[in-house]
C-alpha cells in the first residue's frame, strides 16, 4: 500500500453520515477510546505534519478556523462565521471570544497569523508549505522560495478576533481548507520558549478538544479531554489512546482480545471471513485511491508500448475480478477509470471495455496484440515490470504477468525494489511497466486527472494528449463544466490507454459495537474524538 502522505483536505466531503442517534443510547460509565495505529507519526507539530496518522491526532489536539461535523460537512471551529467581500478573493473570519489555549490564554487572530507565516517560512522548512500555495494565499510562493519575508503573507489580524486572508486568485472552497493541520493555530510564546521541544507532552499548549497526555515513541500516545475547550460540555470521550502495532495479524488478535475499540488495517485477504464472523463489527468503505500500472511511453520504454493496440491489449487481458476477489479480498472494486468511482460529483463515462465480459476482453486483447505484430505467432514482447516490496504488489504482479503470458504471450521480467530505490527508478523512467497508486488530495476528480496532463511532475509514464491538457486547463478556470470535462478525459484515457487502472481502493476496519458516532460514510475518513462516544452494553 502506498503511504497516504498527502492526505490533504481541500474540499469537504459531501458524504452523509450513517451513525446511530445519541439520544437512543445510554452512555457507558467508562468513556475511554483505544485504537490501533499502524506506525509512529513523524510529528505532532501542525505545520510540520505530513501524514494522515499525525493529522488524526492533531485534529483532536488543535482546532482550526473551521472543522468537520459527523457528516463530514463544514462547521465552525475557532471561527464562528466567515464571508468573502470580493468574489472569493478576500476572506474575513470572525473568531469566537471563548476559545482558549490549554494554558488559559485566549485564542486570537494573531495566533493564526503566526502559524500561517510559520508554515511558509523557509526556516521552518515545512514539507507541507505548498498547501498555502495551493490555497492561493497571497505571496505564499514567493516566501517559500525565499524571495520575500514571511510577514508579507496575505493574512492579517484586523483586531484580536477578526482574521483577514487575501488570495491571489478566487478560491470558493477556501474556508474548507482551514480544517487541515497546516492552517491550525499554534501558541507563539510556547514555541519561542521551547523550540523543537514544544510538542513534548509536558510542554504542549493546544486549543483543541483534547490535550496531549503521554507520548512514547513507537509505542503509544494518549490524549485527555481539555476542560478549557470552548465546547467541552459536549465532549463525551474522556481519554483517547493510540497504540502502535506494526503487524496486522497481531493487531487483529489484540483487537479480538478486547485491547482496542477500533482497528484500522486488517490482514490481507481476511475481510470476507471477518465480515462473515463479525458482521456488526467489520466495515468496508471506499477510499479515494486508485491502483494502476504506469506504461512507460518515453524513449526509455519498450518502443512497442508506443502502439496504442499493445497498451489496450495489456489492459484488456487483465482480469480485474480475479485480482479484487481472489487476491485482495478487501472490498475493493475493479477499475476501468483512473478517477475513483466514489469521488464527489464525478460522472463515470461509459467506458467501452468495462462493459464487456472478460472473455470478450480477452478475445479483443488477442486480436489487438496480433495486429500489432506480437502474440503467439509474432515476435515475443518482452517487458520489465517493477514494483516496490510488498506482499500484495508481488501477488498482483505475479497474477498479471501470468495473465499476459497466457493470453498474449508476453514475457514479463518482474523486478522488486525497496521503496526509495523504486521511487528513483519510477521517476527516472527506468522501467516498461511500473506499479503505482494514487490517492486524492481532495474529494474531486481533478486530484486524479491532473496527473495525466503532459507537464505534470507525477506523470511517470510520460503519457501526453493535447486534448486532455486542453480540457484540464479549461476546467480549472471553469471555462467549461468541469464534471463534463472530467468524463471526457476519462474517455480519452480509456481509448488511448495512457495507463492501466487496476482497482479502486477501499478501507476495511473493525470497531466494537459500543463505539458510536463513527463517520461511516466519510470517504476522507476524518474522524474527531469529540464526536464519538461509548454506549452502555
Amino acid at each position, binding site marked *: 500500500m*502506498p*503511504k497516504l*502522505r*498527502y492526505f490533504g483536505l481541500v474540499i469537504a466531503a459531501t458524504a452523509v453520515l450513517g451513525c446511530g442517534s445519541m439520544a437512543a443510547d445510554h452512555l457507558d460509565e467508562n468513556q475511554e477510546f483505544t485504537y490501533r495505529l499502524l506506525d*509512529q507519526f*513523524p*510529528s*505532532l*507539530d501542525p505545520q*510540520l505534519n505530513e501524514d494522515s496518522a499525525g493529522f488524526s491526532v492533531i485534529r483532536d489536539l488543535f482546532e482550526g478556523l473551521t472543522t468537520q461535523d459527523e457528516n463530514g460537512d463544514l462547521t465552525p471551529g475557532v471561527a464562528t462565521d466567515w464571508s468573502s467581500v470580493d468574489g472569493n478573493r478576500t476572506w474575513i473570519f470572525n473568531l469566537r471570544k471563548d476559545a482558549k489555549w490549554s494554558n488559559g490564554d485566549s485564542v486570537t487572530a494573531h495566533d493564526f497569523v503566526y502559524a500561517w507565516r510559520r508554515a511558509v517560512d*523557509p*526556516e521552518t*522548512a*515545512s*514539507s507541507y*508549505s*505548498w498547501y498555502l*500555495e495551493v490555497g492561493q494565499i497571497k505571496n505564499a*510562493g514567493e516566501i*517559500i*522560495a*525565499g524571495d520575500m519575508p514571511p510577514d508579507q503573507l496575505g493574512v492579517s489580524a484586523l483586531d484580536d478576533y477578526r482574521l483577514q486572508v487575501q488570495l491571489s486568485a478566487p478560491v470558493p472552497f477556501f474556508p474548507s481548507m482551514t480544517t487541515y493541520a497546516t492552517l491550525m493555530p499554534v501558541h507563539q510564546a510556547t514555541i519561542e520558549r521551547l523550540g*523543537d*521541544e*514544544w*510538542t513534548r507532552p509536558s510542554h504542549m499548549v493546544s486549543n483543541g478538544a483534547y490535550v496531549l497526555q503521554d507520548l*512514547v*515513541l*513507537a*509505542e*503509544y500516545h494518549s490524549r485527555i479531554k481539555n476542560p478549557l475547550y470552548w465546547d467541552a460540555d459536549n465532549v463525551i470521550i474522556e481519554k483517547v489512546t493510540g*497504540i*502502535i*502495532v*506494526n*503487524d496486522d*495479524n*497481531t493487531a487483529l*488478535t*489484540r483487537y*479480538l*482480545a478486547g*485491547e482496542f475499540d477500533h482497528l484500522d488495517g486488517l490482514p490481507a485477504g481476511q475481510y470476507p471471513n471477518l465480515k462473515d464472523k463479525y458482521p456488526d463489527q467489520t466495515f468496508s468503505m471506499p477510499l479515494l485511491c486508485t491502483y494502476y500500472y504506469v506504461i512507460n511511453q518515453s524513449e526509455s520504454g519498450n518502443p512497442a508500448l508506443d502502439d496504442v493496440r499493445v497498451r489496450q491489449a495489456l489492459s484488456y487481458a487483465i482480469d480485474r475480478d480475479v485480482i479484487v476477489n481472489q487476491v485482495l479480498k478487501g472490498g475493493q472494486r475493479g477499475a476501468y477509470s483512473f478517477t475513483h468511482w466514489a469521488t464527489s460529483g464525478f460522472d463515470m463515462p461509459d467506458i467501452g471495455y468495462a462493459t464487456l465480459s472478460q472473455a470478450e476482453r480477452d478475445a479483443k486483447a488477442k486480436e489487438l496484440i496480433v495486429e500489432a505484430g506480437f502474440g503467439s505467432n509474432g515476435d515475443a514482447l518482452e517487458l520489465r515490470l517493477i514494483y516496490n516490496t510488498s506482499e500484495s504488489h508481488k501477488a498482483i504482479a505475479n497474477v498479471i504477468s501470468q495473465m499476459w503470458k497466457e493470453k498474449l504471450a508476453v514475457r514479463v521480467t518482474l523486478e522488486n525494489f*525497496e*521503496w*526509495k*530505490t523504486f*521511487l*528513483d*527508478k519510477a*521517476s527516472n523512467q527506468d522501467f516498461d511497466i511500473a506499479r*503505482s*497508486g494514487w490517492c486524492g488530495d481532495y474529494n474531486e476528480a481533478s486530484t486524479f486527472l491532473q496527473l495525466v496532463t503532459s507537464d505534470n*511532475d*507525477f506523470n511517470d509514464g510520460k503519457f501526453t494528449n493535447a486534448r486532455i491538457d486542453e480540457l484540464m486547463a479549461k476546467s480549472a478556470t471553469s471555462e467549461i463544466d468541469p464534471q463534463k470535462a472530467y468524463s471526457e478525459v476519462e474517455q480519452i484515457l480509456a481509448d488511448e490507454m495512457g495507463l492501466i487502472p487496476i482497482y479502486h481502493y477501499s478501507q476495511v476496519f473493525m470497531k466494537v459495537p459500543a463505539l458510536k458516532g463513527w463517520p461511516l460514510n466519510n470517504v476522507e475518513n476524518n474522524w474527531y474524538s469529540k464526536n464519538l462516544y461509548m454506549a452502555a452494553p
Partner: protein
Amino acid sequence: MFQFILRRLLIALPTLFILIAATFLLMHLAPGGPFTTEKPLPDEVMANLEAKYGLDEPLARQFGTYLFDLVTDFDFGPSFVFKDLSVRDIILQGFPVTLTYGFWAFIVAISVGIPLGVAAAVHQNSWLDYLAVGVSIGAQVLPNFVMAPILVLIFTLWLGWLPGGGWQGGQIEYVIMPVIALSTSFMASVARMTRSSMLEILHSNFIRTARAKGLNGTSVIWRHALKPAMLPVISFLGPVFVAMITGSMIIDYYFGTGGIGQFFTNAALSRDYGVMMGVTILVGTLTILFTTVVDILYAWIDPRIRY
C-alpha cells in the same frame, strides 16, 4: 593485561571512524533521500528542507560537520523523519527498552541453554540427550517472527494472561513475551554449542585423568570440564549479547515495544540519515566493547592464554 585493554581501545577509535565513514558514504550512495516521496515535493520546498538539514552542502563538508558535532558535543544531529526529535532523544528512549528485554533474554538463553547442553553431553544418547537436542532444534527452527504472533494468540487471546504488546515502562507482564520470543533461538544455539564442546572436553585426557584420580562425576563436570567447554560458547556470546541488547526489529515490530531495533531497519528504509548513523555508531561501539570483554574473559577462563 592493562596494556592489552589499552591497545584494544586504541584500535577501536580508527575502527569506529572507518565504520562511520563507510556508513555515511553508503547511506548517501543509496538512491533517493529522506524527503523523496511518491508525490515529489516542489523544488523550493525541497530546497528549504535540504538547507535546514544541511544536505545542500558538499558531502565531505556534511561529513566533517557531523564528525565535529559528534566528537565535541556528543551530538548525533536531528532525525530526518521525526521532525521534532533529535537522534539522541530517540536512542535515549528506545535503548533502555531493548537493553531490558535483551538483557533478560540473554540471561534466559544462557541459564537454560548451558545446563541443557551440559545435561545432553553428560548423558549422551540417553532420552535426556534426545529430549534436549529435540527441544533445541525445535526452538531453532521456530523463528521469532513465527513465534511472536503465536505467543500473542495463546497468551493474549486464548488464555488472557498477558497483554498482547506495549511496554509501559517495562512492567513484568509486558516483558515476558518479548523475552521468550527473543531468547528461544539463541538458547537453542547455546545448548547445541555447549553440548558439542562439552562432549569434546569430556573425551579429553585430563578429564580421564581426573576420573582416574577418583573424583566424583559432579566435580569433574562442574569444576574441570565446564570452564574449558565454555570457550567457544563465550566467543559466540559476545556478539550475541550486543545483538540482543540493541534489540530486534522483529520483537519491536510484533510487540510494539518501542525499542531501538525497529529504528535500525526503518531508518535505512526511510533514509533517515541521522537515526541510521546514530544507531550504527551505538551498535558498533557496543560490539567493540563486548568483543574486548570476551577477550578478557578468555584469559580468565583459560590461563594458558597470555596477552
